């Protein structure tokens, strides 16, 4: 059939199972949006308040559904507004496709109105990008974009299409998505070697990350823990793979990780790392990280091996097939004493409450957790509240905790929560944020209202930029440079102004009461929770430190 470039785009999206896209229209994107209008019965377009919100929404959609998130933007500022969203997805390896329109090819390179070379801008924050100024190249670019975004270590791909191409006509035949690139799988010898190491270890620990989620290897991992009796710790990207009540679950690792996790890694004689990258928030001191342990690293991305911490055995492999090959070679074992010791550390909590305060972060998170079911999706912004949420939520399922791990993007939360709710209309979405993060992108409230999304936003409001404030308290002699902005924002009133519902709470009882009310609402709700500015995230290992430097109370 003879169709134009914009229709071709819509057809290829449909072929890849895309039924929902996020975005914001504009001049160069008029043809694209005209087609979205024609295809509105097949492709739902969710219009955000700002392209950044749209990008985070596509990201949140992808993280919670496992599908490819798609975002549309116009040229120039529309495209540059995607940058933080793309970088966030890139750092956390989230498959996303960004479609940007550019000015007509005849104007490219002339500093035309709203012209920007977005492929140059996004080169370092996409897996790949395409500039398409010939209609003949469009189909190829689109199909390859889906292949690249979902192959190997996943990530965002951007396609920039000149306006003339969005209108140009071409013959088109229905096609199939391209097969994904073959994932690397560990060799039999490597698997045997690792199995031997595991079978001989006395104090083994598994440390795993987002790769286990991306590879959907949670069942295999749980089985390995069970058979070999190994305690395990996870990064922020992998919360929920292990059940909260799993006795071998040591909790979060790293800077604000649990005492149990960090101690166990420090004492282990074997560290098996699966789908993670020894980031500077985990291996705070790469030379002393797990210093007594032989280290094994299994990752799908060869460039992650030995990048941050030198390991003894490294294997390029997708985690799932690796574990499937490994499991039959693992001997049934008991490390009773070791697991007991690690579990004992687990009872040492870092929950040090600020004495004067009435409502504590741990109480908020615990209440939310107790009042919602196991299928609830929890989304966070970035800062203290993010760490409290990670620490105190009783993570039970995968793809239920959405947070910006690698880039640490304040302002990520609301957009991501919108994407999560759009992708999971039957599930409850709770958005935890701080007053700092929320001020960045709370404009997306208008999106939540127009889409009638019952997202509950829990604002941990300490009226300071808590995480930086905490560092200034501990390391900068309480010189609070630009962290006490004296804002007078009335969140419940602002919520009402957006057409949403607003509550406030300053005690645990009050919070419980308004949260129950919020659960009854059909549209978005904000709950402004007054917490103390002296509340700290603990435990904490300062950057460059080791478990010996851990601040507990």
């Amino acid at each position: 059939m003879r169709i134009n470039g914009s229709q071709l785009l819509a057809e290829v999206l449909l072929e890849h199972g895309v039924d929902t896209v996020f975005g914001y229209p504009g001049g160069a994107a008029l043809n694209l949006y005209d087609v979205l209008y024609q295809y509105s019965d097949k492709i739902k377009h969710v219009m955000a308040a700002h392209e950044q919100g749209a990008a985070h929404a596509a990201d949140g959609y992808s993280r919670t559904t496992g599908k490819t998130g798609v975002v549309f933007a116009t040229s120039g500022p529309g495209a540059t507004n995607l940058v933080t969203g793309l970088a966030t997805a890139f750092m956390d390896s989230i498959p996303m496709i960004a479609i940007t329109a550019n000015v007509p090819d005849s104007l490219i390179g002339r500093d035309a109105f709203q012209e920007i070379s977005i492929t140059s801008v996004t080169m370092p924050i996409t897996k790949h990008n395409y500039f398409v100024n010939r209609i003949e190249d469009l189909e190829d670019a689109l199909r390859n974009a889906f292949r690249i975004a979902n192959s190997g270590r996943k990530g965002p791909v951007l396609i920039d299409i000149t306006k003339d191409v969005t209108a140009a006509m071409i013959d088109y035949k229905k096609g199939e998505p391209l097969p994904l690139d073959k994932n690397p799988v560990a060799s039999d010898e490597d698997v045997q070697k690792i199995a031997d190491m595991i079978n001989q270890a006395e104090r083994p620990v598994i440390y795993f990350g987002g790769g286990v989620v991306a590879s959907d290897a949670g069942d295999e991992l749980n089985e390995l823990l069970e058979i070999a009796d190994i305690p395990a710790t996870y990064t922020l990207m992998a919360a929920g793979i292990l059940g909260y009540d799993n006795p071998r679950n040591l909790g979060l690792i790293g800077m604000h990780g649990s005492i149990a996790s960090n101690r166990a890694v420090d004492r282990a004689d074997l560290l098996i790392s699966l789908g993670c990258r020894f980031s500077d928030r985990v291996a705070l001191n790469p030379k002393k990280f797990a210093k007594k342990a032989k280290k094994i690293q299994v990752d799908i991305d060869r460039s992650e091996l030995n990048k941050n911490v030198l390991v003894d055995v490294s294997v390029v492999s997708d985690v799932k097939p690796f574990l499937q090959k490994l499991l039959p070679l693992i001997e049934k074992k008991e490390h009773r004493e070791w697991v007991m010791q690690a579990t004992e550390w687990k009872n040492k909590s870092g929950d040090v409450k600020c004495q004067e305060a009435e409502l504590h972060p741990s109480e908020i998170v615990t209440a939310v957790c107790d009042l919602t079911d196991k299928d609830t999706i929890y989304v966070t912004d970035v800062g203290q509240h993010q760490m409290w949420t990670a620490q105190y939520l009783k993570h039970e399922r995968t793809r239920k905790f959405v947070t910006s791990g690698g880039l640490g993007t304040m302002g990520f939360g609301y957009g991501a929560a919108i994407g999560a709710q759009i992708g999971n209309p039957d599930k409850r979405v709770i958005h935890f944020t701080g007053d700092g993060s929320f001020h960045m992108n709370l404009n997306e409230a208008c999106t939540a209202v127009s889409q009638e999304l019952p997202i509950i936003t829990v604002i941990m409001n300490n009226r300071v930029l808590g995480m930086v404030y905490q560092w200034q308290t501990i390391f900068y002699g309480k010189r609070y440079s630009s962290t006490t902005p004296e804002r007078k924002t009335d969140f419940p009133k602002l919520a009402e102004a957006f057409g949403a519902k607003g509550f406030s709470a300053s005690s645990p009882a009050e919070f419980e009461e308004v949260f129950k009310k919020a659960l009854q609402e059909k549209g978005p709700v904000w709950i402004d929770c007054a917490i103390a500015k002296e509340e700290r995230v603990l435990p904490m290992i300062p950057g460059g430190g080791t478990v010996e430097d851990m601040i507990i109370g």
Partner: protein
Amino acid sequence: MDKIVNREVISILVDNRYNVLSRVVSLFGRRGFNIESLTVSATNNPDISRVTVVFNGTEQALHQIITQTEKLEVVRDIFTLDIENSLYRELLLAKIECDKHDRSALKEIVDIYRGKIVDLHKDSIIVELTGPPEKLDAFMEMINCYNIVEICRTGITGISRGVTTKDI
């Protein structure tokens, strides 16, 4: 892995398309890879270009360069050239201040290195010299005592011996 490796020559076969070089170079820049020289050249396949990079650093840094670069969609193949079994060449142009008194002595040096005098002025000459980088280094050492006005070196290009070719 943190031990220093000697000068390594990395050959990268990339799609011959616009923007490809900037993808490679931008990657080196943002990852802080320290490279000595970089050349781009055509291959017998018009769809493919060859980027030749000379690198000095640790084994870990070399591993990072290779594994990060191979992730680029435009990279078809990347490998280090085995010093023993490969040929490397580089071109040097040197403008040297030289009046009639120095001329014959300089010509002697140039001849020994099988270079060519490609330009002659009253007060200067330009020398063209090709060869392995060590030969060019040695030549520069020899002419150091003269007043060198300007030097350009192309950076090396390299190819492995025998028919086990990596070209497509």
